[in-house]
């Protein structure tokens, strides 16, 4: 419901903005070009220059261990993505500001320049790729099914999943997998809430990222009574930028350099995600 | 020279003519009673005198000087209306006391506001005068009561004191006893009667025929927005010449 509302608003605003600005992103195939071309379109400007000009790279993210999170009693964001983002900021010569965003609004946040990048273990799906320009994949991931540990042995196959009540983050890669399998679900606004649903017994199962499942469930974690069973797919993480932004190329180049220098591996090892890093 | 001279007043609301060619005059110290059935235009006439309605035609003079002339915009300046209103006082049918003020505060409020603008009296003097007025109304012990703590008759007497506090040249009453229970009308009429004895200049719109006859020096009978008959009370009320006056009085006699 909420997702539809947002989509509707977004669509309405896009239509209006396109109408107002003269189809700046459409190829405008058959009609003749408008006599006057807009003096400056965002795509024509350098996004790198824009970010360097204001001196801050604003990274939109959510609280998502082990990629972005805060240690007990600390106000500083840490995690694999957070640390890499700071390294990228240093590479550009700018400060990095982290903003916790409402994940549903990530495309609007980017488009309106409220943030400059979505960098938060974002799965590269057809949907995210259509909403923003994404970097090359940097990390492997999978969608896994989480259930109560004491019932885990009943749900080891995809076939056994039908009939379970699922909770899943709205619009996430997990939701996409359930759609493919034609399994109905209750949409939550974060993966963490989907987990909470299962822990509280409100839903039988949820689908979350493997990286998150590794960090947050099982013995010695916040949810010791949960475990993950079926792996539904394998997928890749990427960083999202504005459409047409030259930050994409800048990022890919930076990453290659950092990978070759061993920086990526060092930081990945710190947060236990070194197995998942995409080899360059 | 009459203190008030009303000439050829006309007033209509949309297409409805409510006052037609109203003329009369009033001498200092005299009282006029205006009688007539509901909708005859009595109340509208009082409201015109108090600038609550603007006449469409005619003029009004007080003490020989024109304070309103429908054909002369210079007499209708918004900025002067406030000053001109002070020639008149108006006692409403529904009292319209200010509920958040005590009886005494109701009486003194407007005079204090005026004194603040113009200087002159002190707050203490105004309050002293207010208490005297309330005493005159027989309400000395009700000065610190709020309106909702007073009976209708007491509220109307406070309203009379409030109007008197500004020393108007002419005091107008708009059916002052119509909203009262019958047993409470006496105390209000008694107060008005004593004001007449003290030669207060008054215009009283009323349904109390006996009272109108006793208290007034002149009676005006209105019907359908025109003055049908005017003259001394015993003439208009006891020996009416006009057929419409006779019919009206006959209906009252039956009731």
């Amino acid at each position, binding site marked *: 419901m909420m997702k539809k509302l947002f989509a509707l608003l977004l669509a309405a605003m896009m239509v*209006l903005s396109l109408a107002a600005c003269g189809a700046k992103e459409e190829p405008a195939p058959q009609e003749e070009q408008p006599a006057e071309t807009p003096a400056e379109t965002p795509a024509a400007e350098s996004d790198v220059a824009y970010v360097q000009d204001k001196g801050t790279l604003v990274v939109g993210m959510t609280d998502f261990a082990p990629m972005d999170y805060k240690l007990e009693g600390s106000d500083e964001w840490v995690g694999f993505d957070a640390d890499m983002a700071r390294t990228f900021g240093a590479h550009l010569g700018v400060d990095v500001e982290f903003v*916790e965003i409402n994940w549903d609004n990530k495309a609007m946040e980017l488009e309106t320049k409220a943030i400059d990048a979505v960098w938060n273990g974002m799965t590269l799906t057809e949907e995210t790729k259509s909403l923003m320009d994404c970097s090359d994949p940097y990390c492997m991931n999978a969608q896994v099914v989480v259930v109560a540990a004491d019932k885990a042995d009943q749900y080891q196959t995809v076939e056994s999943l039908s009939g379970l009540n699922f909770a899943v983050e709205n619009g996430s890669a997990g939701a996409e997998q359930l759609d493919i399998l034609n399994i109905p679900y209750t949409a939550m606004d974060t993966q963490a*809430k989907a987990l909470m649903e299962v822990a509280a017994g409100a839903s039988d199962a949820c689908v979350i990222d493997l990286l998150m499942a590794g960090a947050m469930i099982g013995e010695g974690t916040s949810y010791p009574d949960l475990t993950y069973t079926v792996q539904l797919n394998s997928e890749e993480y990427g960083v999202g930028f504005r459409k047409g932004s030259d930050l994409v190329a800048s990022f890919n180049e930076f990453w290659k350099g950092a990978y070759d220098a061993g920086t990526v591996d060092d930081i990945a090892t710190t947060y236990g995600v070194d197995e998942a890093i995409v080899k360059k | 020279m009459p203190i008030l001279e009303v000439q050829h007043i006309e007033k209509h609301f949309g297409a409805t003519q409510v006052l037609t060619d109203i003329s009369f005059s009033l001498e200092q110290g005299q009282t006029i009673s205006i009688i007539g059935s509901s909708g005859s235009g009595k109340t509208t006439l009082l409201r015109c005198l108090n600038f609550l309605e603007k006449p469409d035609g005619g003029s009004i003079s007080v003490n020989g000087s024109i304070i309103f002339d429908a054909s002369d915009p210079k007499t209708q300046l918004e900025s002067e209306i406030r000053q001109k*209103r002070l020639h008149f006082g108006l006692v*409403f049918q529904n009292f319209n006391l200010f509920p958040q003020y005590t009886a005494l505060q109701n009486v003194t409020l*407007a005079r204090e506001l005026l004194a603040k603008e113009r200087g002159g009296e002190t707050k203490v003097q105004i309050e002293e005068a207010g208490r005297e007025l309330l005493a005159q109304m027989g309400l000395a012990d009700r000065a610190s009561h709020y309106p909702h703590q007073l009976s209708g008759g007491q509220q109307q007497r406070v309203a009379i004191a409030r109007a008197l506090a500004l020393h108007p040249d002419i005091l107008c009453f708009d059916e002052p006893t119509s909203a009262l229970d019958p047993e409470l009308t006496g105390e209000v009429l008694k107060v008005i009667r004593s004001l007449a004895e003290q030669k207060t200049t008054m215009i009283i719109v009323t349904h109390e025929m006996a009272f109108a006859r006793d208290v007034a020096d002149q009676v005006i009978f209105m019907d359908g927005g025109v003055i049908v008959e005017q003259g001394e009370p015993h003439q208009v009320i006891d020996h009416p010449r006009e057929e419409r006056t006779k019919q009206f009085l006959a209906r009252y006699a039956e009731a």
Partner: protein
Amino acid sequence: MLLTVTMSLLEGFGTTLKLFLLTLLFALPLGLIISFGSMSRITPLRWMTRTVVWIIRGSPLLLQILVVFYGPGLLFDLPLLPRFTAALVTFIINYACYFSEIYRGGIQSIPRGQYEAGQVLGMTKRQIFFKVTLLQVIKRIVPPMGNEFITLVKDTALVRVISVYEIIWMGESYIKKGLIWPLFYTAVFYLVFNGLLTILFSWLEKKLDYFK
């Protein structure tokens, strides 16, 4: 743990309170101006004001927050307002419209006779407003205003949609750490604050009970 959570929720509640107080500070007077517009004798002004009030009161506050924050960027490629400012602007406009209707109801419920009594006593319009009608209007609007204030406190929770970190956001962030109770604990802050507001308003009503 309770202390850490309480401190962090208090920080979120600080944002909630700031939004609440600043909204009132601007929306209360702005509402009065809007109510004068909606009672104006100038017909186009009256209809324009009433149309705006209808749109603001008739559409979800949540959408208004999104439009005010993202709208300038999406529609005109303009720089955005800071998140808190956008939330505050939306709340001020939204609540000013609600307040304007309460004022209008209060002002129009004062009998004509009160104005006329003031007029025949030679008072100016200003004097009549401040000395005669104002307190009567206040007495009449205190109960509906009390309701609006309490609704406002709870409505502030909506601003987390544009990432203003108010108390519910702070409570929810603990879910990611596996703690569910802080989210429900936020209710205590709302209950205590709304309890204080309720006491304040019933005290005010009592204070104004001396006249009818």
